[in-house]
C-alpha cells in the first residue's frame, strides 16, 4: 500500500490519546466519548490504540472492540484524506443516489468492500439518512453538503479536489503539525 501522504505526527497523537484518557479520568464509563475523541485524532480507531485504551481503562479489549464495531460512526480502517458520504436513505435512493455512488466508485476505483483509494486520498461510503431529504439526492464531502447532486456534478467535485491536491504537491511543503501544548502527566 502506498504510504500516507499526510505527515502523521504519531508521537503527538499518542500524547493526545493520553490527554483524552486523562480528561475522562480513565473511567470505563467514558469509553464512547473517549473513542469519539480518538477517532477525531486519527480519523479512525487503530487496533493498537484500542488495546491501549482497554489497558488503561482496565476493561477487556474484546469489550472495547464490541463497542467500536457496534456504532456505524466508528471506523476501524483508516479513512482517506477526503471522505465522501453518499446518502442512500429512502428519499435519496428513490431520487437516484445509486448512480451517483456508482459514478464516484468508478471514478475513484473504490468498491463496497474497499472504500478507500490506494493513495489514501478518498473514502467513498454510504450513510442511511442525513436528514436532508428535501435536497435528495445528497452527498457530503468533508462536512460540506451538496444537494440535488447528479453523477456528473459529483465527479466534477472530485476533479476539483484532485486539482487542488495536485497544486499542493508542487507548492512548498506545508509545515508539519505543531507539537501539542497539552501535556500528558499522570
Amino acid at each position, binding site marked *: 500500500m502506498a504510504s500516507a501522504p499526510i505527515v502523521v505526527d504519531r508521537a503527538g497523537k*499518542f500524547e493526545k490519546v493520553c490527554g483524552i484518557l486523562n480528561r475522562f479520568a480513565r473511567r470505563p464509563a467514558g469509553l464512547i466519548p473517549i473513542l469519539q475523541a480518538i477517532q477525531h485524532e486519527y480519523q479512525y480507531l*487503530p487496533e493498537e*490504540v484500542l*488495546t*491501549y485504551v482497554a489497558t488503561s481503562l482496565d476493561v477487556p479489549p*474484546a469489550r472495547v472492540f*464490541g463497542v467500536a*464495531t*457496534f456504532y456505524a460512526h466508528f471506523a476501524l480502517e483508516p479513512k482517506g484524506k477526503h471522505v465522501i458520504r453518499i446518502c442512500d436513505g429512502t428519499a435519496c435512493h428513490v431520487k437516484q443516489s445509486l448512480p451517483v455512488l456508482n459514478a464516484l466508485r468508478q471514478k475513484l476505483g473504490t468498491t463496497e468492500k474497499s472504500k478507500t483509494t490506494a493513495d489514501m486520498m478518498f473514502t467513498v461510503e454510504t450513510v442511511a439518512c442525513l436528514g436532508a431529504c428535501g435536497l435528495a439526492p445528497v452527498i457530503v464531502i468533508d462536512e460540506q453538503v451538496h444537494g440535488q447532486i447528479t453523477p456528473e456534478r459529483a465527479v466534477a467535485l472530485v476533479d476539483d479536489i484532485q486539482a487542488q491536491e495536485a497544486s499542493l504537491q508542487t507548492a512548498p511543503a506545508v509545515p508539519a503539525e505543531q507539537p501539542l501544548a497539552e501535556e500528558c502527566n499522570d
Partner: protein
Amino acid sequence: MNQIIQPTLTIDGQTVAIEGERNLLELVRKANIDLPTFCYHSELSVYGACRLCLVQVEGRGIMGACSTPPEPGLKIQTSTPQIREIRRIAVELLLANHDQSCPTCPRSANCQLQILAQRLGVKKVRFKSVLQPAPLDESSPSLVRDPNKCVLCGDCVRMCWEIQGIGAIDFTHRGHEVSVQPAFGKQLGDVECVNCGQCASVCPTGALTIKSEVDQVWDLLADPSETVIVQIAPAVRVGLGECFGLKPGEITTGRIVAALKHLGFDQIYDTSFAADLTVIEEGTEFLERKKAGGHLPMFTSCCPGWVKYAEQYFPELLPNLSTCRSPQAMFGSLVKAMLPDQLKVERKNLKVVAIMPCTAKKFEAQRPEMAVNGDPDVDHVLTTQELAHMIQSAGIIFDSLQPESFDMPFGFYTGAGVIFGNSGGVMEAVLRYAAEKVTGKKLDQVEFQQVRGDSGLREATIMVDGSELRLAIVHGLRNARVVAEQVRAGKSHYDLIEVMACPGGCVGGAGQPVSTSRDSRALRTKGLYHADKMLQLHKSQDNVFITECYAKFLGDIGGEKAHHLLHTTYQSRRRISDESLPLMQSQAEDKLKVSVCLGTNCFLKGSQDVLNGVLRYAERSGLEGRLDVRAGFCFEKCESGPTVMIGGEHVHHCTAARAIEVLNSKIESDNPGHAVDENPGCTGTD
C-alpha cells in the same frame, strides 16, 4: 398476633407460593414446568434475548418470564397456542441462520437447539437459509469455536465476564452482522482466554466445543510399539456416569477402570495418587514458607486456568503461587521418570493419557516446561466427555461392566487425593497433612467442615497447635481476582488460598458431561466426599506407596529430585498477541529500535511517562531520523517492569533517564563520536 400471609400467584391454574424467587421463570420451574430457554442461567445476569421463556400474564400480555419479577396474584399461562407459535418461529429463525450439520456436530447428543426444535414440533424451517459461512477457530489447545452454530444467546460472554472476570469474548458489530468474537476478530488462542472452557459448558449448541484428542488416542492404542498408560482425575468418577444415564455424583470408579482396560490401555492409574503426592509437597512447602517467612499467603497451583490467569493478570503474585505442579503434571513427570526402567520401555514409547474434567489441562500438558527434551510428560488429555465418546464408540455397555481395580502402585490413593476434585478439597487435604505435621500427633478428626461449602468465596480460621491458620477458598476467577487484589494491596491476612477456576471446582469443569440437572455440581461434590468416607485412608501421608516412592526414588520431601520432577516455575504472560503501536518511525539503515511496554503491569508502574520522556528527548535532540519508537503490549517481564526494549536488549525497572542513557550508549557504540551531547537533564536512579 398477625398471621403472615404467604404471597402466591397462579401458573397454568396451579397456585404457587412466592418464596424469594427472582423472576417468573424460577417460579415456573418450581411448578415443575420446564420452560424452554437459551439465555437464562441462574448464576448469570438476566439477558432476555432468546424470547423462548415467554408466558402470558393475564391483563398484561406476553412477557419474558426470565425478566419479569414475581408479583402476588399474577395469573400466568405458559403454553397457549399463541406462545407455542412464537416459540416455534423463534426456533425456526435460529435454524435458518444455523449450520445444520447435526449428525457430525460434537454437541449432537445434547444440543439445546436440536432438543427444542424436537420439543416444539418444528418439522420444517419455513425461512430461507441466510447463513454466511465463517471459518472455524481451532487456535486454542482446549476449545473449538464454530461461529456458524452460534445462536447469540450470550451465555458464553456473560460466563467469561461475570463469573470468570476475563471477557475474552464479546459481542461485536450490530444487527444481522452481530457475532461473538475475541478482540479485533483475533483467534481464541491469541487472546487472554485461560482455557477453562466454561463458555463451552454453558453454550446451548455446538458453537463452543471441546477440542477433541480422541483420534490421536485411538491411534496410540492401536500402535503395538507404544505402551499407553492412563490416569483418571478424581472428578471424572462422579461425572462420567451422567453420559450413560446414571445420576450425577454416582461413583463409577470400578466401571471406568474396566472400560479403560477394554479400550486397551496398558496400565490404569489414578491421578488421586499424584494428588496425595501434591499434598505432601505443597503441605511441606507451605509449612516451610510459614516457618522461614517465605512468600505468604500461598496460593494453590493445581488449577491450570488459575495459573494462566495469575500469569496474565497478577505477575507480581507469582512468587506466592505454590511451585508444585498440578497432580496431572506430577503424575506424568513421575511415571515417565520411573516406569521406563520398570516396564523396560524407552521413554519415547511410553505414552501418558490423562482423563480430566478440565479443558485447561490440555493447555497445561502442552506447556514447554512440562516436558523433557520436547517430549511431553502428559501426551494427551481427554475430558470426561471425550472418554464417554470413546466408550460409546467402542460399543461398551457401561452400566453392565463389572468393576475392576487400578494397577499398582500409582493406582493407590487416599481420600485426601479424591477430594481434590471439588472446591475446598485441596485445602482440606493439605490441612490433614499440615495439622499432623505441626502437632506431631495423630489426627483423628480428619474432616474439616469449616472449609467445605458452595459459596464462591469462603474464609475459615483453623487452630493448629495453638496458632491460627487463616484460609480462603475461592472458585470462579472473578472471586480469585477479588482475593488476589487484596493480597496485592497488602490487605490480606490469609495464610493459604485455594483457587479453582470453575464453579464448584473440578467437579464443575468444562470437560464434565453437559449438565442435565441443576444440582449436578452439588451431587458430584457429595459423591467425592462419599468416596473419601468409604476409603480406609484419609490422609496423604498414610499412603504407603507414596512413602515408598520417596524412599526408593524421590529421596527427601521437597528435596532436589522432588523439586526437579514435581515443581515448576511461572512466567508472566501477555494477554494479547502481536500488538504494537508505532509512534516514531525511521527509514535509516542504522535505526535503533526502542519499544516501551504499555501492558497493564508496566503501565501501572509508570511506563507511559518513560515513553513520553523518550519521545520528547528524541524530538529535542534531533534523533527523530534514527529512532524507531513503539509502544508494545507486554514483553512477559512484568516482575521487573517498566520494561523497555532498546536495540534488542531489555532494560528493566526503566525510567525515562535510564532509557535515554541506554539509547545514547547504543548510538555511541554504533557510531563512535556521534553521540548526542545534550544532557538528558535528569539522573537515573534505579
